[in-house]
């Protein structure tokens, strides 16, 4: 188990470098002078020159990358053109909000998705099963930004149960979490169902029955534990995709997270912040994938106990 962990961690390192390289390089693919882009359209000639020297923008590309990485590891991502504060501070201020939103959606996805999937599989062919799967298909198809607006329309504008935008209380979290979690919940429900259906047919479930175990134990312990294996991977991957979807949901609900910041910054041409946001989101995604791999190894002993 230990070496599985270590192996995976080592594999992350080149990916980390590749991601930072891409984010570093994107500036050069854009039209215009990188120094100008980083300084802002209102910057004076001296400011632009200062940045050019600071980041070594007249030096060869590889040197620039090293300077960039050196700064990065120190936590320096440049200054926000709009506010003048360090880009990292802007992002760090908002990161917890995005995490909170992601956590809320994760809860929705896991609780509703798993339960629906298990019930549908156990009662295969019943009206519950058919209805759930049709609803799940809608859930997979619905655009989350539209769903957010509709939920807002119904619950905030007309029924007044939840606040429309902003953050602060638990009530503020509900609509955004539901919105962000819907796609993933539907995917998890469908996958759990098909995974359970396949597992229930397996020989070892028949053995468990022959041992005289209760049906509940067979379904929730013997079957589910095995059905969980592909589901766990997907849950983690969807958690990562949700980071992307958070961009849309945060914008709809004016939720002060990294996603909304990213979009705002693009509109304002605040490129240091844009770069920083993309980097943070990508790194978070990579870490989530790593966790997914590790969980997978934990859950399936065939992987780690070679």
């Amino acid at each position: 188990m230990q070496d599985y962990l270590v192996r995976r961690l080592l594999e992350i390192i080149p990916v980390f470098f590749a991601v930072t390289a891409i984010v570093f390089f994107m500036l050069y693919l854009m039209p215009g002078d990188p120094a100008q882009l980083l300084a802002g359209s209102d910057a004076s000639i001296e400011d632009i020159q200062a940045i050019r020297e600071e980041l070594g923008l007249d030096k060869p590309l590889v040197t620039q990358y090293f300077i960039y990485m050196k700064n990065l590891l120190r936590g320096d991502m440049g200054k926000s053109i709009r506010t003048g504060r360090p880009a990292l501070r802007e992002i760090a201020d908002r990161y917890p909000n995005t995490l909170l939103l992601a956590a809320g959606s994760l809860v929705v996805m896991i609780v509703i998705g798993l339960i629906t999937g298990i019930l549908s599989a156990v009662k295969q062919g019943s009206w519950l099963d058919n209805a759930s799967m049709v609803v799940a298909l809608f859930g997979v198809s619905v655009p989350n930004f539209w769903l957010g607006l509709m939920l807002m329309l119904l619950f905030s504008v007309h029924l007044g149960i939840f606040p429309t935008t902003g953050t602060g209380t638990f009530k503020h979290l509900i609509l955004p979490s539901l919105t962000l979690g819907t796609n993933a919940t539907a995917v998890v429900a469908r996958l759990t169902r098909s995974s359970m259906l396949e597992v229930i047919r397996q020989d070892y479930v028949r053995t468990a029955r022959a041992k005289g175990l209760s049906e509940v134990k067979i379904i929730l312990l013997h079957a589910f534990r095995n059905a969980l294996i592909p589901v766990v991977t997907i849950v983690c991957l969807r958690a990562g995709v949700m980071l992307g979807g958070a961009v849309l949901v945060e914008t709809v609900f004016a939720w002060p997270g990294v996603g909304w910041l990213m979009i705002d910054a693009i509109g304002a041409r605040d490129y240091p912040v844009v770069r920083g946001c993309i980097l943070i989101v990508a790194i978070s995604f990579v870490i989530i994938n790593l966790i997914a791999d590790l969980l997978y190894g934990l859950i399936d002993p065939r992987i780690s106990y070679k």
Partner: protein
Amino acid sequence: MKSPSRGTLLEIRNLKTYFYTEQGIAHAVDNVSLKIQEGETLGIVGESGCGKSVTALSIMRLIAEPPGKIVEGEIIFGERGDLTKLTQSEMRKIRGNKISMIFQEPMTSLNPVFRIGFQISESIRTHQQVSKKEAVNRSIEMLKMVGIPSPEKRIKDYPHQLSGGMRQRVMIAMALCCNPKLMLADEPTTALDVTIQAQILNLMNKLKERVGTAIMLITHNLGVIAEMAQTVCVMYAGVIVETADVQTLFKKASHPYTIGLLTSIPRVDRTAGTKERLNTIKGIVPSLLNLPVGCKFSNRCPHVHEPCKIWEPPLAPIATHSDRAHLSRCWLHHQPPKQ
């Protein structure tokens, strides 16, 4: 209340288990009657699809309710009475406890995500009120009994870390851990290497003597039957066609199907050096959805005559044999009804 005959552990009377499918009704078990004595090994032999597994699953009441159904018959087990009349909840107290079952595929019959010690202890703790520690100790004992070395270490292993033969031993340990009165073994060695087969069969015999369990051994392999069984039932297309003790079966087989099976075994001393062709039974097994009228073997039998195609013969003692325990389902051995 119906009671079994003296010394009989399990008696099946006129069991019919059908499967209702889109293509029709499959008569998987179509009037099977047999008896297992306490402590004996009953062999059930027949080709694939003849209903032997379904018979065992019917005893355990593990037939999936749609599409299957025990349509008729009684399965009398000791003091528990007719198993077909028990609820699933009552059956759960018997499964793994008084009657247990092992299956053909040891590679896939154990749950891959739980350690084998846990899987054995689980059986014990389900049926007996013992502490966790006691269950673990008993599991180690069972592993020792089935011949797995270093059992204290092995209980922490996962199934994929064991070979096929070892896994089957674990299955046997799991099946015997609560001292059942009857163990159903459905093709337990078919999926194993020949050398391992012999080991497992030996083990089963040894344990049988030690624990006193009766065994219902299902197989298509006559050699295994010869080694292990005391009594044999030959099944074909959902019915038993011949029942006899093992010596009688091999020496004085009477039903044409049984004779066909026995003669189709290639024999080194007979065919070697000669140009003799292998004997086969002509024709193929009928589909369970579409069985012939009358005797089910009639379309392949070399001795078929008129009554065979109209009435199904009863499974009854052969008129000309003194051994009343030797039963056959064939009009050669009984008087068909008059027209």
